[in-house]
């Protein structure tokens, strides 16, 4: 078998890990138990590895806030000194079995949702949506206040133990059927999960009621389920991450398994190249701002690992599924259909689990191939939120993963297999 045939075979093997994955929301547990290698006095961040001193200010602030949340420092000055001295380690979330959505700040005591790919047995942990009132919070946007910290503790102690009990009694929640139905109802499962949020609530509603909790508990849990915007995003990211981890390590495969940015650099990983990062300056998003007072000067370059969903064939690759997010980005539907069709040119296969009405029930492309990206000059499109330099979301739009990442990855592939 020549090298080209080996690569084709390996890519089919790698992409099957995504297509045939069977992600299930199985439980909730502390990050210290759920995230492999997450030690005491360690904080994860989004994107490729970066030292504390080189982080954007939003990221640094999030790191300091994490120290306060865990009680490692009494104030931000002490936290800053600890981080500068290396007394608290900072690591990339995507070097572990988790996802650094937004700022990607995860510490040992934060409650994490567990998504297990039952096809491979691999578990990924994703941090939960922070409720209706504090969405974003310090995990997502690095914003901190006593109220945000109290909300985290409240979710961890007063909501999630109950949801976990429901999950154990129910045997988990299968994620893929909800993703599939959501795609057919207008979600692209990165910037929109409106349909998926309603489907999971409908699926779990009677299970929650049948738990026979006191009425105040039931009201609190149902309130979280029904009022948290984009709650399902956490499960979509967990599904994408667990499938990508199953594909990681596939020798000879040129499929992308991870993508993420830290506001300074953007990086990708490739199935056959393990945990090696291939980086370039992080791109800015194009799209719409929530207010006319914002401009590009206020925005951060790509910040967050939520584009793991693109690596699993969702979000920017699924633009055709979601007319309403076309509007959010300032596009027309036909441009979103063209975007998905363009992404087909850089993908290994199509995912038969996701037939899309706007594509006459053709399937979504899946499995980004670094060779096809370079050959066509077409870089993956990622949907995402636009972060303000000082924190908070100021818009939404798209960005393309930098071509330089793919050039470096192919060079490393050649180094290994030539």
């Amino acid at each position, binding site marked *: 078998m020549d*090298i*080209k045939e080996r*690569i084709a075979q390996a890519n089919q093997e790698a992409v099957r890990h995504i297509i045939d994955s069977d992600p299930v929301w199985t439980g909730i547990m502390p990050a210290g138990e759920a995230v492999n290698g997450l030690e005491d006095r360690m904080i994860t961040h989004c994107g490729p590895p970066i030292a504390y001193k080189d982080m954007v200010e939003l990221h640094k602030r999030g790191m300091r806030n994490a120290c306060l949340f865990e009680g490692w420092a009494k104030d931000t000055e002490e936290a800053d000194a600890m981080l500068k001295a290396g007394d608290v380690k900072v690591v990339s979330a995507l070097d572990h079995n988790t996802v650094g959505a937004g700022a990607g700040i995860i510490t040992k005591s934060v409650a994490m949702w567990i998504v297990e790919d039952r096809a491979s047995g691999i578990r990924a942990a994703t941090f939960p949506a922070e409720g209706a009132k504090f969405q974003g919070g310090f995990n997502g946007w690095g914003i901190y206040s006593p109220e945000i910290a109290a909300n985290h503790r409240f979710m961890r102690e007063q909501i999630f133990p109950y949801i976990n009990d429901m999950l154990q009694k129910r045997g988990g929640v299968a994620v893929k059927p909800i993703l599939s139905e959501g795609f057919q109802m207008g979600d692209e499962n990165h910037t929109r999960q409106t349909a998926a949020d309603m489907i999971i609530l409908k699926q779990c509603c009677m299970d929650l009621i049948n738990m026979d909790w006191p009425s105040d508990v039931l009201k609190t849990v149902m309130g979280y389920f029904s009022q948290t915007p984009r709650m399902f995003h956490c499960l979509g990211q967990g599904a994408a991450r667990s499938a990508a981890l199953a594909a990681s390590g596939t020798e000879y495969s*040129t499929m992308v398994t991870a993508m993420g940015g830290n506001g300074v650099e953007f990086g990708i990983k490739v199935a056959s190249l393990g945990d090696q990062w291939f980086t370039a300056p992080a791109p800015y998003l194009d799209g719409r701002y929530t207010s006319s007072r914002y401009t590009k000067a206020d925005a951060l370059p790509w910040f967050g690992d939520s584009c793991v969903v693109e690596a699993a064939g969702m979000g920017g690759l699924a633009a055709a599924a979601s007319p309403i997010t076309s509007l959010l980005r300032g596009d027309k539907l036909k441009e979103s259909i*063209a975007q998905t*069709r363009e992404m087909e040119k850089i993908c290994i296969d199509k995912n038969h689990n996701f037939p899309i009405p706007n594509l006459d029930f053709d399937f979504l492309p899946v499995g980004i191939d670094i*060779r*096809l990206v*370079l*050959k*066509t*000059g077409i870089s993956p499109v990622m949907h995402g939120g636009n972060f303000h330099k000082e924190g908070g979301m100021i818009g939404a739009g798209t960005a393309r993963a930098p071509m330089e990442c793919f*050039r470096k990855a*192919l*060079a490393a*592939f*050649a180094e290994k*297999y*030539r």
Partner: protein
Amino acid sequence: MIKVDNNDPRKKTVKVINIGLQPFYDEIVFQGVPALQLNWRPPVKQSKEVQDMLDMFL
């Protein structure tokens, strides 16, 4: 009697295939002219190093 010149381009129905940027196509359609947008882009020019790797692996 006026002689009609059937070769006069102004008397013919224009049909357009646009190979250029999408806005040209949009503008033509906006004016009620039948048009097709060809999904085409110039071949990508690679550096020799990248081209050599693509030749080897793709």
